């Protein structure tokens, strides 16, 4: 075997490495593009809240949960993920408007996704999980708990009811709740 052969091997490997790095760079560029042009990040709120006091906290007290249009017009849904239900079980949100979902857990780790959308987050006790999105499809979307939270995990499921923007009518206190079906 000659040195020349060995050099040819190294050359071919380097050539291939360039192809591989180029392929990975395409993915990186697409991800960076989505982050800059469409503000797509993974939900990363880093907001602490004491899980032992969650039901006594102002924000995640039972009576303050659900959808609320804030004074500045921002639409926020506050949802507690607890063993073994989302509270409230059903949340109304308008289509085609920016909305913010805020979740927290008083007990163990939960998680959720809203089917057919990119809404997906873990709910870790001790933190407020926050997802900003614009919902495009109307209808009752599934919102299951997707992280093992105990023996009742399989039945832990909620609903995101997306209504056309015109049908989204907050009450005088800015709150909107699911009508019984």
């Amino acid at each position, binding site marked *: 075997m000659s040195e020349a*052969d060995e050099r040819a091997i190294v050359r071919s490997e380097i050539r291939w490495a360039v192809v591989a790095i180029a*392929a990975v760079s395409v993915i990186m560029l697409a991800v960076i593009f989505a982050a800059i042009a*469409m503000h*797509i990040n993974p939900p990363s709120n880093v907001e602490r809240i004491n899980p032992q006091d969650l039901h006594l906290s102002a924000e995640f007290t039972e009576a303050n949960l659900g959808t609320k249009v804030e004074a500045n017009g921002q639409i926020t849904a506050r949802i507690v993920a607890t063993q073994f239900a989302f509270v409230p079980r059903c949340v109304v949100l308008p289509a085609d408007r920016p909305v913010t979902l805020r979740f927290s857990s008083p007990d163990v780790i939960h998680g959720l996704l809203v089917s057919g*959308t*990119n809404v997906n987050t873990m709910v870790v006790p001790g933190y407020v999980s926050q997802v*900003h*999105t614009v*919902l*495009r499809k109307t209808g009752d979307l599934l919102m299951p708990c997707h992280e093992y939270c105990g023996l009742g995990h399989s039945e832990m499921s909620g609903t995101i009811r997306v209504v056309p923007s015109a049908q989204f009518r907050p009450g005088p206190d800015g709150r909107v709740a699911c009508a019984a079906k």
Partner: protein
Amino acid sequence: MHEDDHDGLTPAQIAEAMKATPRGALALAGITTGLLMAAWLAMYFLVFLPRGSVG
């Protein structure tokens, strides 16, 4: 190198086979990696972006 490690291939045989190598490997790896990138881009443009922004 231990005697019993020999695989019976002679330098001449290997030099002959190395003449065309790695053109086929480059083609095979290139095609499969190309398909992989195509699949990734398809998921990105056809599934991920239509599902809307998050963050």
